[in-house]
């Protein structure tokens, strides 16, 4: 056998030529297939398709469903639809678009925001689809367009419904608003359901219940003339309107909550501890959803979103604050239930607390101390030393386990988008989050709700409801209908071996308001017993990149004022959590706000006769 390492070029040419013939045969076959397919359409299907092309003076147009109306618990309208005229452009028929926009601008005015939104919608639409340009035409604009109809081919003026929020800024974070749908939102959803709709719920209830509120698109078949202009509606499949939605929110209570906050930045959450129905969820400052629905231009939106007061930020749901002394009833209950302390056995408070081998001295808020003090008084007077001692006894991991059962460091699962979860620290948490070991001093700080501990106002209210309900957790919700999406509370009921401890915890909170030395005794003039707890949380620092403004900085170093409460103490109908950013002390700023809300709610529900007030 001879070795032949030389490639055989003739053979190679033969290989390629053979493949060329194979390719040619395949091409011939596929060409015949194409002729076959087109022959099938043009010969076998000719009559049918020809008839359809005759019919093709018929255009199909999507019919936008009416969006469901949102009501508060008394049937007052929070979001409705108002008739309006919308101007749309069909690019394929419109010719030169920039010229058209220029002429429209001269006739009726086209804002930059409208141009931007139009350009964005155009980039993802097909050229034969209608793209909305102006969502709300005035009567004058409609009239001008009607007169100049012939100058604007491809421009359609259509009756439309606009979303309107009669209460304006009130409850704006809860209800949310609808706005023009953007590309990302469209990509996340079934696009077919949004044909003919230009809007989508952006935040709040409008977003969370988007699928229920939206409804289903209808179709209209319209006969057109040779230029495509509509002549007559031939038939229509009507759209299915969106479902109306009833909320548990009481808009009057909501307005009160917003009024008591006034010019402060802060949040108020009020809920019914029996079923978790949210009665008010205020975050101040708010914003005007009507302006956002009509579409702000980029500059105005930027101004709104960069405002240092953060009006778009839902503090009740997303603001995370150190809970401060709010944690004391929970920790006291935990310590007693787990046997670290005897609630009746007093501790001597001299105003300072020290750890062996640690130089630092922890001080009480009251420099001279509280003297001999038991659990109930430690809550009522908010004694820090008692809780430093308890924290040292329990250790951070036991505190973490117990506080988690009360919902600290957990989300509540409310039916609103974007809820943030607080932090209840532990050794494991710190190792994972910061990669550092835990120090004993941090345990002591955690005993008074400072250090790493963070909670949202909503979560503080939900936790307070667990004490009000003697262990039964609730899932806060805003939709009143029975089929609220997930209705089961997050977390198990808190079971105590000694049921009497619940009464001690409640009594200690009643003592806060009604005790002679209670930190919130100033609000005790009411007709019923309020159980509450004040909190004054230190603001740890201020970010370096914030604007340097002496007044603002000074003000933003003030403590946050907190108060949680429920009433009437022994048959609770309302739980309130108040957080006032830089409000100073909980007892002076936050507690009176809560009292006003409780007062209004109990009086109004009593007028409706479903509550026999528990007189003092």
């Amino acid at each position, binding site marked *: 056998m001879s070795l032949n390492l030389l490639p055989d070029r003739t053979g190679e040419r033969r290989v390629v030529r053979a493949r060329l013939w194979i*390719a040619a045969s395949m091409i011939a076959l596929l060409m015949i297939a*194409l002729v076959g397919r087109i022959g099938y359409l043009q010969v076998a299907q000719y009559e049918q398709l020809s008839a359809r092309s005759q019919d093709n003076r018929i255009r199909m147009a999507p019919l936008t469903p009416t969006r469901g109306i949102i009501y508060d618990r008394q049937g007052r309208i929070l979001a409705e639809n108002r008739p309006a005229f919308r101007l749309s452009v069909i690019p394929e028929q419109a010719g030169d678009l920039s010229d058209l926009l220029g002429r429209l601008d001269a006739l009726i005015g086209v804002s930059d925001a409208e141009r931007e939104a139009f350009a964005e919608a155009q980039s993802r639409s097909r050229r034969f689809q209608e793209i909305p340009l102006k969502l709300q035409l005035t009567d004058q604009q409609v009239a001008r367009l009607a007169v100049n109809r012939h100058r604007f081919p491809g421009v359609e003026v259509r009756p439309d419904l606009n979303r309107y929020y009669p209460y304006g800024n009130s409850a704006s974070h809860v209800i949310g608003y609808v706005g023009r749908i953007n590309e990302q939102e469209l990509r996340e959803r079934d696009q077919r359901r949004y044909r003919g709709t230009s809007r989508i719920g952006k935040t709040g209830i409008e977003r969370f219940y988007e699928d229920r509120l939206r409804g289903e698109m209808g179709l209209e078949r319209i006969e057109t003339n040779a230029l495509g202009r509509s002549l007559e509606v031939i038939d229509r499949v009507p759209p299915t309107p969106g479902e109306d939605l009833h909320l548990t929110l009481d808009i009057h209570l909501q307005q009160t909550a917003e009024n008591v906050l006034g010019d402060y930045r802060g949040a108020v959450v009020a809920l019914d501890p029996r079923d978790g129905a949210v009665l008010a969820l205020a975050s101040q400052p708010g914003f005007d959803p009507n302006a956002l629905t009509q579409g702000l231009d980029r500059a105005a939106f930027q101004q709104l979103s960069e405002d240092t007061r953060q009006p778009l930020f839902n503090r009740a749901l997303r603001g995370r604050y150190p809970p401060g002394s709010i944690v004391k009833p929970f920790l006291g209950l935990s310590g007693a239930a787990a046997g670290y302390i005897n609630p009746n056995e007093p501790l001597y408070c001299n105003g300072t607390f020290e750890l062996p081998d640690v130089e630092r001295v922890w001080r009480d808020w009251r420099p001279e101390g509280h003297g001999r003090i038991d659990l109930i008084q430690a809550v009522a007077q908010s004694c820090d030393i008692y809780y430093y001692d308890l924290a040292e006894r329990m250790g951070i991991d036991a505190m973490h386990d117990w506080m988690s059962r009360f919902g600290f460091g957990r989300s509540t699962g409310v039916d609103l988008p974007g809820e943030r979860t607080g932090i209840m620290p532990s050794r494991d948490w710190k190792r994972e989050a910061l990669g550092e070991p835990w120090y004993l001093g941090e345990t002591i700080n955690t005993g008074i709700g400072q250090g790493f501990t963070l909670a949202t106002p909503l979560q503080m209210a939900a936790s307070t409801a667990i004490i009000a309900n003697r262990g039964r957790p609730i899932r806060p919700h805003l939709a009143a209908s029975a089929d609220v999406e997930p209705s089961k509370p997050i977390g198990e009921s808190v079971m105590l071996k000694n049921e009497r401890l619940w009464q001690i915890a409640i009594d200690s909170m009643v003592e806060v308001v009604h005790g002679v030395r209670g930190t919130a005794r100033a609000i005790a003039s009411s007709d019923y017993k309020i159980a509450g707890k004040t909190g004054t949380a230190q603001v740890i620092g201020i970010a370096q990149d914030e604007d340097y403004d002496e007044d603002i900085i000074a003000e933003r170093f003030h403590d946050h004022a907190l108060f949680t409460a429920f009433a009437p103490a022994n048959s609770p109908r309302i739980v309130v959590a108040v957080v006032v950013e830089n409000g100073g002390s909980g007892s002076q700023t936050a507690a009176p706000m809560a009292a006003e809300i409780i007062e209004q709610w109990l009086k109004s529900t009593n007028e409706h006769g479903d509550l026999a007030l528990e007189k003092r």
Partner: protein
Amino acid sequence: MNMAIWPSKSANPPSGPRYGGWLQRSLHVDGVLLALLGLLAAIGMVVLYSAFGSRMDPIQDHLVRLGVGFGLLLVVARIPPWRLSRLTPWVFSLALILLIAVLVFGQVSGGARRWLDFGIIGFQPSELMKLALPMMVAWILANGSLPARFGRSLVILIVIAMPASLIGVQPDLGTALLVGVAGVAVLFLAGLGWRFIALITSLLAAALPLLWIFGMQDYQRQRVLTFLDPERDPLGAGYNIIQSQIAIGSGGVFGKGWLNGTQAHLEFIPERHTDFVFAVMAEEFGLLGVIALLMLYSTIIARSLWIAHEAQDNFSRLLAGGLALTFFVYCFVNIGMVSGLLPVVGLPLPLISYGGSAMVTLLTGFGILMSIHTHRRMWPS
């Protein structure tokens, strides 16, 4: 003509005088191909005139672009294949770098990054890759013996996958598939073993469900679903398919006559100057017109395959064949899509659709074919 027996790998192609007459020898133009392409372009303008509703100005634009395309064709035809072969790795690397650049710096339009903006002109690197990839595959194959060994074939598959996936993530799945097809076509012509072909086909079949779940954007899934049942979304993706089939079918055997297509003029055919121009043509000229057009395409493809058949070295042979097959795939995919045989892929009808970049690329490809054909030499006697 002497029997071509090349004794070894290092042997040069024949160095005798060139074939053909003046046109071939001086201008490096294949008269047959040029005439066919010119005829096609002329038909294209007639159809476009109707599709634009008897407007002349876009036709003038179109004519300018055709001029640019044919000019580029003449320039490229002068580059001899051996020089083209030497340039190939550089052209391919450049195209690859530009594809990466487009992902980083590219202009976003319609949710995809496809364009590089060079001030005066926008440029789609994927267009360059449509030529660079078959060149690269032919170059690798021509450097070894044919049919390619298993290892070399695997390397080539990777070379194909790189640009295809870069284009796929833009995302431009249609172009990614076509670029991939151009590479695979060359591999096929090089005598890729049938067992290897079977293996790849079954692997691809197995990968399809994965592509469906992980590789596709939602709109792409919608397109496939709508292809299977256009009536499920009659106002959206299904609209094009339904309306273009009505247009084609209502044309019948003889057509409605030039400028008389109601579907086209009532603006029921979307994108009727670009991707769906075939529907306009089928409506107005009927089955007879369609057959004539397909015959013209077939003749161009046949001539291109013949050029591959007659080419004198492996690089030219494989590249010419690959370009011919790719041209066919473009025709088939566009007409198949417009007539409802294939799902909607945004792809123009070669040399007829209005629009610049794809047409210029195609004509450049034909320039390469002409270069291959007109640089052949007779064997010195």
